[in-house]
């Protein structure tokens, strides 16, 4: 068997390149805590309205004792509910997404909030939103004829504004 010296050297370099990529990715995943939705948690999508967590009056943002925020959202053809939502910037946010019908996907452009929403499963994503402003929530997985019409809006406000709003109440309903 004949393997050229150059070819051997190149194979070594290629191995090094791939190894470097793997090291960077593992580093970012393990050290920086990349939270792809991997919670493997099942739920009966046909009975969300009866569930403890995703009944209509439980949806939207709620503040946890440690100051972080949990957002519970239902995706269904064709929208994300609640349809509008106000969230604080620079705050640890845990999104919990469920579908009431078919597969959807959701992302907030210019952020790393992205997940598939598969019926039968709860998709949990942790992130922080850094910039105040109005953002769309867009469905990014084909879910039927209205796929391109499936969106909702969120408003990100500064932490101080969020706290002021929360004192008055009703921040999560419009």
């Amino acid at each position: 068997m004949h393997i050229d010296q150059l070819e051997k050297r190149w194979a070594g370099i290629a191995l090094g390149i791939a190894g470097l990529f793997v090291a960077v990715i593992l580093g970012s995943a393990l050290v920086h805590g990349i939270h792809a939705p991997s919670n493997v948690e099942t739920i009966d999508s046909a009975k969300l309205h009866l569930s403890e967590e995703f009944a209509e009056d439980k949806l939207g943002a709620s503040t946890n004792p440690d100051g972080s925020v949990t957002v519970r959202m239902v995706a269904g053809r064709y929208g994300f509910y609640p349809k509008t939502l106000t969230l604080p910037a620079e705050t640890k946010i845990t999104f919990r997404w469920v579908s009431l019908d078919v597969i959807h996907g959701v992302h907030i452009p210019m952020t790393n909030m992205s997940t598939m929403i598969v019926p039968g499963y709860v998709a949990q994503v942790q992130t922080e939103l850094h910039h105040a402003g109005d953002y769309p929530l867009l469905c990014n997985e084909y879910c039927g004829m209205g796929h391109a019409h499936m969106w909702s809006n969120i408003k990100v406000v500064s932490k101080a504004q969020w706290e002021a709003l929360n004192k008055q109440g009703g921040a999560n309903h419009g």
Partner: protein
Amino acid sequence: MDNSVEKKLALTHFWVAFAAFGLAAVMGLYQVIERSGFFSFLESREVYYASVSTHGVLMGFVLTTFFIMGFGYYVATSTLKLPVWNKTFAWTGFGVALVGVVMAALPLLFGQASVLFTFYPPLKAHPLFYIGATLLVVGSWFWCVSMIVMYTQWKKANPGVPVPLAMFATTGNAILWLWTSAGVAAEVLFQLIPWALGWIDTIDAGLARTLFAWTLHPIVYFWLIPTYTAFYCLVPKQAGGFLFSDEMARAAFILLVVFSLPIGFHHLYMDPEQGHGWKILHAVGTFVVTLPTFITGFTVIASLEIAGRLRGGQGLFGWIAALPWNNPMVLALILGLLMLIFGGFGGLINASYAMNAMVHNTAWISGHFHLIFGGTTIIMYFGIAYYFWPVLSGKPLYCPSLAIAQLWSWFIGMIIMTTPWHILGLLGQPRRIDSVHYNNLLTLSWEPYEVTMIFGGLILLGSAGLLIYILYKTQTSQESYQGEVEYAEPIHAVKDLPGYLNSFGLWNAIIAVFMLIAFGYPILQFFLMETFGSGRWGV
């Protein structure tokens, strides 16, 4: 050896492949125009999604499968100098696959299967769609059996002799496809068909996605291997040189077959039904499978350099100019490699566990796979077609300079279409939308890119039409042509090849272990935890 029947077999497969391609290209232009929203009279989401579903099935399943089968039959008979084993069996496989395509096409064209080529249960299509798709795969299994039987026949007759490289790669592809298609076959047979027919009431979308992911990555290597086979075994000869290393080519093909299989979860990074650890395991495997492509890039470019220098090219880059740019195979390779560099860069981003979150399911992804599949893989299919058509039909190629213009136009059209497509993804545009109705300022930034894409689509359709025209004019020519495909010789003759570079036994065992590790528990978990299936949903 009279191989006229083999040639007819290959040519018939090729015609089905390129007929599907031509039809799908027309749909592609319609889609890029419709979704821009600039022509309101065209807007119809029913037609759009029927078209997208059909376009995906024709390009991804029909063009590829029939092309690969036709290519394999000719490679097997010409490299092994054997007649195609049991021709009735081969034609039966062709017939089964074709019947499957027609069965699937009916509901697709009538809008009864607008679930896209990735199925997406619990969206439900007409059962004929799933049954037709299954028959297409079953037909391709006939081809796999043919390839493996011929390879085995030859090895028995030539013990210890290296299997010709092109046939080694083709047999590897047949084995790869058997492993690959097992995932989607399980999804269709045990989940989709019984559920679509009403025999079972619910379907677990998480399990279905996991089984589809089994297939979804290696299927792109099934499509790519004929292209790489041409890179290694055909182009160096066409360029006037030699293959730089036969042994490294074999190693690359083996790595492709083994490592493209256990890594499908990079399609599920953003899915909730699989855990962190499994995703990271598949992410690491995804980077291992970049190795054979790095090796291919090196070996193929080195082979071109040998050719360029033999043709009198001087200096560091002079050999590039000395290459025969007017040879369709050589040009297809050069343009294919350029698109592989751009597309491979995008692929590394998608494969990155964290960065993927920024592009997942955005227009970036559609741009990526059009560039790397529609670009790199398919442009070499064109190059192969221009080389094989005269050999298979016995007629000289119609107007070779037109073929060169066609390849350039495909490359230019693909760059013009996919560059803005990538940018749209970075600007947040979701993929697979038929129109832009979001009540948001962000969408204004999308418009110039939507316009540019239409020009790309126009060029691509013109290029596709030109391809079909050239092949048709070649086939119907009154002149005749005699010749066979010539395979590249390695610069160092292959001798005393170790057994593991000349057979697949060991590698099949390794694949079995890898698949058990990569997919064993992730599939088993659905039977261990309490899951809730979904009913049937229309589109």
